[in-house]
């Protein structure tokens, strides 16, 4: 047991626990309303939204898995950098439209939007189902992040993990989105300090960047020409998938103004820089002679590196940064999944006439169930299952892009065509991942004798889009009823006033 590290860790963890509960009183609202619990009332300004989205998108698992990939597989793991470079220009163009239309109509989930836009229960259910399905294993992997850093401090057994999760569940239930928003400020500060220290101290101790890169075997240092297409498609596909995840959308919809979303896309790349430095930690671990651990494999690289390079108390600080870094996304993910379940499954299919307070109670309970499920999964199923499912999650969630992303621009794609395309994409993408034995999300597509390795999610999305486009042409030509669009052109660029423009409950 590493007591100096553990003491620092526990103090910081207690601090954020308190913050999580205090958050309920911050920018006080009626937490008996799902808009207040699940979106923080949509009152977050530029700075809080920056911390919230940064803390939400760059998860603890990312901080463990990206350097682990670089450590184990080399340069291909660096695709995280182009991925998080191109995601912001893309989101800058698309997401303000979602924010505006959501604010005009009181939508709190992507499925709410799809339902209003396409007048289709089936399509909305598909979007909600995909969102929940893709989010669950992602929550489970945040637990893996906590598990790894606990192990690095010499703590084993399930109890500490259960305690950490009970704390997370309690403050999320109590404070809703306000809790991760407030904790994100602390979390990101800890992460920035950790990475700043790491990028200065570790290269000095290893004899400079020249020595670090010289220590990396040539096969891991640069991409092989056969990897170029995989690198590019992984970056592009991941970027297109990221903001289809319910937790990303929840972060966006929590913003106070349309301008807050737009402005943040120019500021969020600061986190990409951070992620790039974190990816380099994989090479630093190679240069420092870190060996993969039997239980955690390459995921051990960063914790082991920190233990080797930092004094114990600062290692504890860094581990706290990672563990707290797991709480923020896990909390937002469970809120987003709960919002989807409540709005698009419970209210849609079980209690059409549920009151506002019943709605928020169901959401709070659902957030507990989602997290409980993730915890049970991690405790009783092999970690590899969660990793495989999360890999599939990316393949699945991108299949909602035609309905959500393209739907924000045009309604030309027909609702039944979108639903069919979605089903084709889900099936094909899952099959591609399965056919690789989950060892990689890269699928070697054969075209005319050439094999082009590429991200399975992107290939499946292309199939989805082709099917959706062809069928839309057929359905539109045959005048199959396209339903009523509840949204108007102007809704997509509206600068809605402060506060949520929602139904009678807030009027």
């Amino acid at each position, binding site marked *: 047991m590493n007591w100096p590290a553990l003491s620092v860790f526990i103090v910081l963890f207690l601090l954020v626990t308190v913050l999580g509960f205090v958050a309920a009183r911050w920018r006080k609202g009626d937490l008996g309303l799902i808009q207040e619990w699940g979106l923080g009332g949509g009152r977050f300004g530029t700075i809080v939204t920056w911390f919230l989205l940064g803390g939400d998108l760059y998860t603890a698992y990312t901080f463990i898995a990206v350097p682990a990939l670089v450590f184990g597989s080399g340069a291909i793991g660096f695709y995280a950098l182009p991925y998080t*470079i191109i995601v912001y*220009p893309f989101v800058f163009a698309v997401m303000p439209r979602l924010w505006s239309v959501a604010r005009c109509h009181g939508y709190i989930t992507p499925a709410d939007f799809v339902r209003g836009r396409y007048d289709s229960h089936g399509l909305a259910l598909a979007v909600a189902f995909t969102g929940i399905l893709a989010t669950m294993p992602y929550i489970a992997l945040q637990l893996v992040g906590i598990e790894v850093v606990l192990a690095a401090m010499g703590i084993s057994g399930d109890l500490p993990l259960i305690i950490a999760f009970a704390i997370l569940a309690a403050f999320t239930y109590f404070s809703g989105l306000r809790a991760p928003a407030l904790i994100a400020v602390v979390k990101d500060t800890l992460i920035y300090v950790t990475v700043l220290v790491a990028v200065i101290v570790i290269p000095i101790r290893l004899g400079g960047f020249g020595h670090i890169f010289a220590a990396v075997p040539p096969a891991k240092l640069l991409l092989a020409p056969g990897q170029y297409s995989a690198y*590019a498609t992984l970056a592009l596909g991941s970027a297109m998938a990221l903001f289809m995840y319910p937790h990303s959308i929840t972060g966006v919809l929590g913003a106070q103004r349309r301008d807050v979303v737009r402005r943040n896309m120019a500021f969020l790349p600061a986190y990409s820089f951070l992620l790039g430095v974190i990816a380099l930690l994989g090479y630093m671990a190679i240069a420092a002679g870190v060996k993969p651990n039997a239980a955690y494999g390459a995921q051990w690289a960063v914790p082991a590196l920190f233990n080797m390079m930092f004094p114990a108390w600062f290692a504890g600080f860094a581990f706290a940064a990672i563990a707290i870094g797991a709480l923020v996304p896990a909390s937002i993910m469970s809120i987003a999944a709960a919002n989807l379940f409540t709005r698009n499954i419970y209210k849609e299919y079980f209690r059409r006439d549920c009151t506002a307070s019943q709605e928020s109670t169901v959401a709070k309970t659902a957030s507990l169930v989602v997290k409980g499920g993730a915890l049970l999964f991690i405790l009783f199923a092999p970690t590899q299952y969660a990793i495989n499912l999360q890999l599939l999650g990316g393949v699945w969630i991108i299949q909602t892009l035609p309905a959500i992303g393209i739907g924000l621009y045009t309604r030309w794609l027909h609702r039944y065509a979108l639903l069919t395309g979605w089903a084709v994409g889900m099936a094909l993408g899952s099959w591609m991942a399965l056919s690789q034995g989950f060892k990689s999300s890269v699928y070697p597509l054969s075209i005319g004798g050439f094999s082009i390795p590429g991200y399975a999610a992107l290939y499946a999305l292309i199939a989805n889009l082709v099917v959706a486009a062809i069928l839309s042409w057929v359905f539109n030509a045959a005048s199959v009823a396209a339903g009523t669009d509840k949204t108007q052109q102007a809704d997509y660029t509206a600068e809605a006033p402060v506060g949520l423009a929602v139904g009678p409950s807030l009027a």
Partner: protein
Amino acid sequence: MSRWAYVLLLLPFAAMLSVPTFASGAPALGGIPFFFWYQFLWVIISALLTGLAYKATVR
């Protein structure tokens, strides 16, 4: 949003998806191979371009 703003937003895609243009190790900068420092540089360029697109379309 004006056409110009969309062009600014497309530049990072063009740069980052043409992998062969930056997949080499030379020229290194302070011991860091080209492949790495070039992509770090693009984090900054891309942020500036998005910032410009924001300025160009702010109401």
